[in-house]
């Protein structure tokens, strides 16, 4: 590492240039400090997320948690069985205590589930169906008869708390940590709960500091004022050099997808991609190796689909995806009647082949500069691209996505749910509750597959339907053009070790070890 | 009974070969102006507008604004050449040895401070203690015919004539050895002119200062001065008793001045 002169650092006063790690600000004895993003906790009863999502402080716990194949594994439910048509019997884990000493029994589960699970309508729990079988087991039913309800209960918003009116201020959960102090937009502090059924965490206290600006989070890490940065946005990776002494970059297996969603049902002038041949040509014109080299510190890999192979045991024979084959792409466009003009750009009966690409969900800076690279790749096969970069999520949806006002929608997102059908159903089914995805639903053939998966009772059968639906969506209908599979990132000070997990919400930072 | 102010210590103003031009090599505005104002005497500097009268006044007090610059000549007050002094010592001389009353009454006073305070600040140049300066200021205002109530008002609440008399009161409070008056009566109605001239008369009696009265109005000059000199296009063209000018001797410039004074009388 070249020695950065002080003057240059002073002159440029950059974050990365300052590689002298400050040690005199070690954590006050025994408190792990985590730099989280901006504070978006909600303390309203119906939409309660305090301590549960981004960051998840492990104060409350869900009935089940995702294992390393994102299948639901027992947590507060010791076991559960689906008796058909959405009826379930679940046996609660014995010896579980709430932080105030109340025992976790059938009765407390029922009242807590009514307040904290029944209000999440994507889970679909029928509050009236909750019945006490005996002190340690309960019976309940899914409103839609779904066999995957418990899988949906692995979402952080399904964490259970003691149902008291002031839940909004100080939630009492069953988790390894008890909430100590919450100062909105500044800090959430938790301490170890010794009566925890799952044994003691390593860190006695954890402090989550809300630092809204990504660059400030990184600087706090370099200045040793936080030990871990849990909320990592791609823009931060640019300020970290390959072997940067001040920051350790931890990465999970690839889980998120960077992909181009095609507008299959666009009204003119965004109806060009109704033609499968054009969609297929675009998919074949992309050099995914080049994208992988430029983006996300080279840690992403070319993607074949929107769901990674290791998830739900999907295996590797899922969509073949698309390699780079410009010759085939050119043939497809010629077949589709888009002839090349003098300047090499294609047109058909006077109409130039010009696509609008809107970038991106969640924001433009998380996928920069992919749009410009893709535009150049498309221009080599004669397709002109108008790029619209939008940073604000609401404008992305209300001005573009929800109204299908573009041909291609660039997204960086991923599935965080143990319900195998969750992503494909909401993104590609014609009856999706999210308005913007109606434009990407291939139609009946895929709907049938997804419905079959949703109504399936045996997990292997459900996964098989999902696998087939995924293949139809990508290979056959090219409703989405997968680009990259991107790992989740966590940044730490040198010497801090945590056990990584693909969904950052389920990483237990309390178990981190601070090295020498 | 008003106690006479300090004993007369009039200064002797000698100007030798004063030449002013625009930015050095540029055209000359004043060329080789020399004259002598013995202590206690009064001299009128006459000239039509544009003849360089005001430039002379500013030059004497080293208040010329760039690009105008004094290219040669000396200004001596009691044999001290003002152009040889550094900033600080020049500041000592300003006001105490040489003071100037401006022509434009409307803008010459600080718009945001009352009259009494402004005259007191002039008095403080001579009498550092605030209380003493205050009495001097009150006396000076009284001497020029302004009562205390007017003293507490602001310049914009007084007429042109009254504002000019405030300047005279300042001069009175200051007791300069030489007083320059640059067109003090111009732009005033005849009643206000008389009041200003009378105030000047009182001031000169009390302080015994010597006066250089700069004007184009022979009649006003005649009230205070006996001798005069005429400036025409930057050169002194005539010197002598004022009465000669009134009767039209001494060349075309003097004649033009005499005629304009005559017309004013009709």
């Amino acid at each position, binding site marked *: 590492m070249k020695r950065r002169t002080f003057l240059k650092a002073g002159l440029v006063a950059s974050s990365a240039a300052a590689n002298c790690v400050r040690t005199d600000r070690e954590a006050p004895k025994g408190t792990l400090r985590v730099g989280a993003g901006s504070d978006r906790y909600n303390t309203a009863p119906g939409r309660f997320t305090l301590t549960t999502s981004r960051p998840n402080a492990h104060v409350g716990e869900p009935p089940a948690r995702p294992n390393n194949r994102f299948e639901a594994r027992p947590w507060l439910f010791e076991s559960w069985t689906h008796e058909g048509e959405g009826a379930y019997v679940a046996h609660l884990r014995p010896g579980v205590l709430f932080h105030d000493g109340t025992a976790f029994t059938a009765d407390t589960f029922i009242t807590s589930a009514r307040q904290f699970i029944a209000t999440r309508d994507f889970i679909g729990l029928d509050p009236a169906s909750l019945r006490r079988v005996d002190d340690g087991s309960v019976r309940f039913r899914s409103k839609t008869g779904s066999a995957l309800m418990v899988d949906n209960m692995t979402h952080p918003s399904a964490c259970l708390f003691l149902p008291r009116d002031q839940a909004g201020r100080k939630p009492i959960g069953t988790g390894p940590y008890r909430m100590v102090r919450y100062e909105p937009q500044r800090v959430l502090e938790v301490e170890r709960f010794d009566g925890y059924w799952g044994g003691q965490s390593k860190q006695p206290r954890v402090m989550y500091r809300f630092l809204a600006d990504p660059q400030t989070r990184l600087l706090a890490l370099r200045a040793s004022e936080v030990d871990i940065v849990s909320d990592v946005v791609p823009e931060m990776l640019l300020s970290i050099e390959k072997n940067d002494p001040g920051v350790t970059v931890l990465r999970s297996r690839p889980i998120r997808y960077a992909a181009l969603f095609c507008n299959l049902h666009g009204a003119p002038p965004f109806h060009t991609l109704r033609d499968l041949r054009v969609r297929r040509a675009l998919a074949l014109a992309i050099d995914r190796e080049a994208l992988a080299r430029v983006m996300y510190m080279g840690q992403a890999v070319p993607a074949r689909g929107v769901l990674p192979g290791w998830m739900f045991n999907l295996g590797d024979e899922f969509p073949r995806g698309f390699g780079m084959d410009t010759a085939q792409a050119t043939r497809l466009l010629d077949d589709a009647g888009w002839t090349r003009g003098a300047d090499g750009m294609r047109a058909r009966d006077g109409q130039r082949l010009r696509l609008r690409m809107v970038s991106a969900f969640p924001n433009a800076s998380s996928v920069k500069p992919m749009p410009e690279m893709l535009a150049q790749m498309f221009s080599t096969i004669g397709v002109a691209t108008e790029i619209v970069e939008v940073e604000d999520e*609401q404008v992305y*949806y209300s001005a573009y996505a929800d109204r299908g006002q573009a041909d291609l929608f660039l997204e960086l997102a991923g599935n965080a749910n143990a319900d195998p059908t969750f992503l494909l159903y909401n993104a590609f089914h014609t009856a999706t509750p999210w308005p913007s995805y109606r434009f990407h639903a291939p139609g009946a053939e895929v709907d049938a597959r997804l419905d079959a998966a949703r109504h399936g009772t045996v997990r292997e059968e459900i996964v098989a339907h999902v696998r087939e639906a995924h293949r139809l969506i990508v290979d056959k209908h090219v409703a989405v053009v997968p680009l990259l599979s991107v790992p989740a990132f966590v940044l730490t000070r040198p010497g801090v070790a945590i056990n990584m997990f693909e969904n950052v919400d389920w990483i237990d930072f309390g178990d981190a070890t601070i090295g020498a | 009974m008003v106690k006479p102010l300090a004993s007369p210590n009039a200064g002797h103003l000698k100007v030798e070969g004063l030449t002013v031009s625009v930015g050095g090599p540029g055209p000359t505005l004043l060329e080789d102006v020399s004259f002598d104002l013995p202590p206690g005497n009064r001299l009128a500097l006459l000239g039509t507008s544009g003849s360089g009268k005001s430039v002379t006044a500013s030059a004497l007090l080293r*208040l010329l604004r760039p690009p105008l610059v004094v290219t040669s000549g000396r200004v001596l007050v009691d044999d001290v050449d003002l152009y040889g002094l550094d900033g600080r010592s020049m500041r000592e001389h300003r006001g*105490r040895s040489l003071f100037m009353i401006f022509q434009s009454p409307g803008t*010459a006073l600080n718009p945001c401070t009352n009259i009494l305070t402004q005259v007191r600040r002039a008095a403080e140049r001579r009498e550092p203690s605030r209380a003493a300066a205050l009495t001097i200021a009150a006396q000076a205002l009284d001497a020029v015919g302004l009562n205390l109530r007017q003293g507490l008002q602001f310049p914009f609440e007084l007429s042109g004539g009254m504002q000019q008399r405030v300047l005279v009161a300042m001069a009175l409070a200051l007791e300069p050895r030489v007083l320059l008056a640059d067109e003090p009566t111009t732009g005033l109605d005849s009643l206000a002119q008389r009041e200003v001239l009378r105030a000047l008369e009182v001031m000169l009696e009390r302080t015994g200062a010597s006066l250089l009265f700069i004007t184009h109005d022979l009649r006003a000059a005649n009230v205070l001065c006996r001798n005069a000199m005429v400036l025409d296009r930057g050169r002194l063209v005539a010197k002598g008793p004022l009465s000669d000018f009134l009767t039209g001797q001494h060349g075309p410039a003097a004649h033009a001045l005499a005629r304009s004074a005559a017309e004013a009388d009709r």
Partner: protein
Amino acid sequence: MRGRLGRRLLWTLTTIALMSMVAFLLVAIAPGDPVVAELRFMGVPATPNTVEALRREFDLDAPLPVRYARWIVRLSRLDLGESIASGRPVAAELARALPWTLQLAFVSLVMIVALSLSTGLAAALHPYGRLTTFLRGLTIMAISIPVYWLALAAVGLGAVVLGWSTVVSDASLGGLLLPAFILSLAPGLAIGRVVRQRVIDERLEDHVRLAVALGRSPAQILIQDVGVVIGPSLVTMWATTFGYLLGGAVVVERIFDRPGLGNLALHAIAARDYPVLQAYLLCAGVAFVLVNAAADLLSAWLDPRLRRSRVDD
């Protein structure tokens, strides 16, 4: 003076009333929907009836004028409603953020006044000297470099390299100096340029030449003759800048980790949190109007020409 006060009060009230209407309208026509935004952020797809229930709960389904009327009625009872994104009463959110912004605003104001006066007077004392050219260069640099950079460079240098300050903010006064300085650099130097210009223009006036002719010292002249005349107009300029500071400095608050009004506003905009955004726009607007009204009255009182004049405002 009393007539002016009465007229000014009436004027301020009308402005505030119109401002509340514009604030409500601006927020309502901004693209995006708070309820959908909140549900989308939680990453959970919401069935239409949940969205509808929430829209009713937050009174978003009524026509615009009706919603505005209800908002005003609640406002008259000082009930600002509840934040959609955080579930906490809006008044509590504003109250929590206010001290952070006020501290920063006041310290920045002091620095802006000091910076503008010192650079302005220094440049005015020797208007064509080397110092003035240096100050002008500094002003151009300070104005051209975006605040985002200055702030990050300051945090990077201050906390990471030199270790004087901390990245993570503490409520101490020390933690206030760096952000306040960054916030006051551009406005301070810009107003400094105006001060220089005003001082030079005033020094060209006859009454200052008279003061020089009296032989009074430059310091006396600067304060008693120049300062007294141009003072009131500078007060209005500082007040306007302070008015903006009360709205919260978004960038500096984000980077220096000060959860003030600017930060709150940015979150409210991102989440389309209507209740918070409307309340913020109104309060920031009212603060701005009141500060400027106070400044106008103060400068009118300071300037005898206005104080005594009968002319209508």
